[in-house]
């Protein structure tokens, strides 16, 4: 029996995230591990290097809470929802202190995680000819093409001490299944020294093994699995709950006022014991409408070897596709 990796989130953060670590909390708009970020704030981690392609509100919260000294990212706003004022205060006014920044483009961050996961010393990218980004980031460097003419910009691997991602489900061993926008989670997990996965639910091995292609992160890459329902709020989980767009629209308006950010953190994060209490402070009135209606996929058939003695008749049925269409009828979700 493989090791059971299920741990309460506070225990996992205590054991695996240390002051001064570089940590990646990934998820591209979808499945952002907010609950884990909030627990890091509660435990008062300091001096972190925070890695995320799109920092999102999570960066504003963790920077506002004083957890982060250095930001590694490729975007500095919250998608269409607006500016991130904690980041802007640190960069524009050094308020309350400057923030070190390693700035890249999206593709460079993707390649850095890929190089990190593959333990490569560097990786070339077609971007940056004529850009000012290499001028402000000494880690974007130029190498001669060893196979032909010209030169290419290269970026270094990104190997976080810890990567944390959120997912729909996992088994107790840590086989993690993700669907919807899968972002850069697989690369970020393999790039890291230690890995925490928070999930909406733990499922039986049989559920995972009924659809192995859905397992984006195999158990061998995972150190801790934490069950945290609604652990991505205010971001979303495909098939479970929608993004809290009202929250996303509210944040940049309110976070212009730095005192408000501290009050928000006191009320909803530092003043709560765990994610369940956090959700209670947000309130069912705001959370309930985020529930989504079902829209299941058609099951796929992985097949099994024919039992000895099974007739050619059923083999013929498969070949003509009768089995597949029968399964579709059973599914009842065909449009």
């Amino acid at each position, binding site marked *: 029996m493989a090791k059971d990796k299920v741990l309460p989130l506070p225990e996992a953060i205590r054991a695996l995230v240390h002051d001064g670590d570089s940590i990646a909390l990934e998820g*591209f*708009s*979808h499945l952002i591990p907010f609950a884990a970020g909030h627990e890091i704030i509660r435990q008062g981690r300091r001096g972190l290097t925070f890695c995320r*392609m*799109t920092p999102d509100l999570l960066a504003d919260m963790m920077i506002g809470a004083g957890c982060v000294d250095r930001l590694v*990212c*490729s*975007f*500095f*706003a919250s*998608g*269409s*929802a607006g500016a991130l004022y904690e*980041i*802007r205060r640190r*960069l*524009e006014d*050094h308020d309350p202190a400057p923030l070190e920044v390693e*700035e*890249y*483009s*999206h*593709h*460079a961050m*993707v*390649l850095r995680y*890929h190089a990190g996961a593959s333990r490569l010393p560097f990786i*070339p*990218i*077609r*971007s*940056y*000819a*004529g*850009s*000012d*980004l290499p001028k*402000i980031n000494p880690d974007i460097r*130029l190498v001669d093409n060893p196979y032909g003419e*010209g*030169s*290419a*910009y290269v970026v270094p691997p990104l190997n976080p001490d810890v990567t944390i991602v959120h997912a729909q489900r996992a088994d107790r061993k840590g086989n993690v299944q993700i669907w*919807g*926008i*899968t*972002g*850069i989670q*697989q*690369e970020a997990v393999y790039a890291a020294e230690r890995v925490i996965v928070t999930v909406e639910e733990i499922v039986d091995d049989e559920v995972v093994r009924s659809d192995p292609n859905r397992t984006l992160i195999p158990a061998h890459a995972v150190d801790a699995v934490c069950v945290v329902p609604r652990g991505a709020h205010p971001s*979303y989980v*495909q098939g479970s709950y*929608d*993004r809290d*767009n009202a929250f996303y629209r509210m944040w940049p308006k309110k976070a212009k006022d730095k005192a408000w950010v501290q009050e928000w953190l006191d009320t909803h994060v530092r003043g709560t014991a765990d994610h369940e209490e956090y959700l209670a402070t947000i309130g069912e009135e705001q959370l309930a409408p985020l529930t*989504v209606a079902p*829209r299941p996929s058609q099951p796929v058939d992985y097949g099994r070897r024919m039992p000895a003695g099974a007739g050619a008749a059923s083999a013929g049925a498969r070949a003509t596709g009768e089995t597949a269409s029968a399964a579709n009828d059973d599914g009842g979700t065909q449009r």
Partner: protein
Amino acid sequence: MTGTIDGQAAAASATAPDYSQTELIVCAAAKMLAGKSTVFAGIGLPTLAVDLAHRTLNRDIELIYESGVTGAHPEEMAEGIADFVLVSGAESVVSMQALFGYVLQGGNVDVGFLGAAQIDRHGSLNTSVIGDWERPTVRLPGSGGASDIMSNAGEVFVIIRRHDHASFPAELDFVTSPSPVAARASGEGIPPQGHGVSVVITPLGVLQREDRFGELVLTHTHPGVTVDQVKDATGWDLKIADHVQSTAEPTLEEVRLLRDEIDTVRLYLR
């Protein structure tokens, strides 16, 4: 007026009496998408333009979202490039590695749509900072995928919501996404695959770049705008086309589609 679409009733192709500036910009962008097949776009006005183009003059256009979704069939208007309604019922969702590596850098994107705080005469874009990078006056969103799109898309359309010396300066505060001219001048790195910026739509008119290493040229002024107004609002000596046209005004049908079918909740139409 211009913009008549074959086979459409004359009434529907009549100019809409009460169109907004946003609708004018979106309709102008949509017309530029005739004959393009894959478009890489962020959310907002570009999405409206692609949707409108799809309904009016280009059934084959495919929109690729930065989140990895292709062939989206949203049941409702998406709020953001990663809205779950874009995923439910979509034809495909690929990883970021596949999206930026194989789809974009692999050369499969015809048109990239970008916004910018500043643009220069060759179509280099600044989305990083106003002022000095070390201690900016305004910290802007940064590259995101913009510099990767500029280096790899066949061509780039820009929608910019201001037209003045601050947003059309002689020199950018920061080059986030370099034009082929800037790339060639640097002599370093891998040259861009595409044309760079080909179309810029502003609140005053339309600027285009025919030559990959040429300058932006004013080709259209919006109704009521003069060529001199556009020249005065531009921070360099703007080149003017021999025959500057008036931007086609939105038709009744285009405005109806935008308001009643595309952006029914008025998320982006203002």
